[in-house]
């Protein structure tokens, strides 16, 4: 367990470092980086802004580009990569997190717009080594295949229980409808929400 965590971290670290190196090489070679768009003159004062993010109980004082979404900030700056980027357009639910205890989409939330508001991500659900009952329910019910949508599903599922929308399978499906699953694990997700909600 220690080892695999260790190698995950260094793999990401390695990828990040090599990306930085190749970018530096490209610039030194004078080539235009692939995917670059026409430079746009930034309006005066469009520089970074300071924001204090409170994530999973920790406090982070950051300088962020005002364009940075909460999703990218969690993943790229705070290395909380459990929250996934599916569509980046508010359509799939993979990026679901809780702000002030309510589920929202981090891909349509600007990081600068949630100063000092408590944010909970999938990494903040477990109690130490003990998974949250909803995480356990997803494992028990086999409520995933590839797992890409799962962090968002679990964050929504915890909220569905809190909102009191577990009255019937139909109600669960309606209130889980903001989370798409490309593998279509829907029947076992409904079962997991029921188990995790103690129904």
């Amino acid at each position, binding site marked *: 367990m220690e080892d695999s965590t260790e190698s995950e971290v260094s793999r990401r670290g390695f990828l990040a470092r090599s990306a930085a190196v190749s970018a530096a090489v490209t610039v030194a070679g004078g080539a235009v980086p692939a995917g670059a768009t026409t430079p746009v003159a930034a*309006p005066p004062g469009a520089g970074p*802004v300071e924001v204090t993010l409170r994530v999973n109980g920790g406090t982070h004082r950051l300088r962020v580009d005002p*364009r940075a979404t909460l999703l990218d900030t969690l993943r790229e700056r705070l290395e909380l990569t459990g929250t996934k980027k599916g569509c980046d357009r508010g359509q799939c639910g993979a990026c679901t997190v809780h702000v002030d205890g309510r589920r929202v*989409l981090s891909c*349509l939330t600007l990081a600068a717009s949630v100063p000092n508001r408590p944010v909970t991500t999938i990494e903040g659900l477990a109690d130490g080594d003990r998974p949250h009952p909803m995480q356990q329910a997803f494992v028990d019910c086999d409520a995933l295949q590839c797992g890409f949508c799962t962090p968002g599903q679990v964050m929504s599922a915890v909220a569905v229980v809190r909102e009191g929308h577990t009255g019937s399978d139909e109600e669960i*499906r309606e209130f889980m409808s903001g989370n798409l699953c490309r593998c279509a694990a829907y029947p076992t997700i409904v079962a997991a929400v029921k188990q995790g909600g103690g129904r």
Partner: protein
Amino acid sequence: MRPFTYASASTVEEALAGAGADSAYLAGGTTLVDLMKLEVMSPAAVLNIDTLPLRDIRHDHTGLHVGALARMSDVAAHRLVTARYPVISQALLHSASPQLRNMASIGGNVLQRTRCGYFRDPATACNKRTPGSGCAAITGYNRAHAVLGTSESCVATHPSDLAVALVALDASVLLRDRAGERAVRLADFYLLPGDTPHLENRLRPGELLAGVTVPPLSWARRSTYVKVRDRRPYEFALTSVAAAVDLRGDTIADVRLAAGGVGTKPWRLPAVEDALRSRPLRADTVKAAVTHAADDATPLSHNGFKPELLRRTIVRALLTLAGRP
């Protein structure tokens, strides 16, 4: 996304003072951040109004008052709304997803932009996004587009479900700028595309939508929202109908009807309302009354089904209300 300056306003005065010609207010961000990513909207300044104290939901002798920054989910669940104006609650609960409803504000909802796929794609011609560039939808894929209120320049629908309910209930929006506040009926607030589809409503630059007022209507307790779409949850309307009836025995004393998914703005149906007054609320009379509901429709190449679907949606909405106490 293009660069912008970012600031946050803590009072209405601060927001109005901070707004400029090329600025955009940020509420829930579910339209604005999406369209900034697509570079369909590229304001030079973004002014966050999310924390302004405009979130109250209350009812008095002048009607229901909802602050512009009240959340869709909070309004949908509020007991004043579910008891007195079920059509509003249902329209909201049939909108978007639970996460989006937690983020999105009432003001942002009525100001959301069309979901026309060409509008959202800067590589295509679109008079609404780039005036004078043409309309890719008229000759392109237009199954979801409007059949009422269209022009040679634009055939896009207004996508808000809430606005359909509000137009049926004769609601007004409160607009505030540095000079003061004015109320505009939502039905008059939206503009038909004509040859200026980029002008969508009467909001002036820098003006703030402060709230929505729904006049008292005791019989709106008997109201409903029916939305027909390609998949049941989490989809925009092909057609939708907001309906309220004042039923005396089985006779329709008064009625309100508005439709979504068919018009370039939320579409009130006064001719059908007239045809229904003083008639019994029964399948045969309702079916007769809707015959002319879409006489003005001009279907496009892929949405010829919409007039008939609209008539059937009206019938469904009204008959749903027949059985209610």
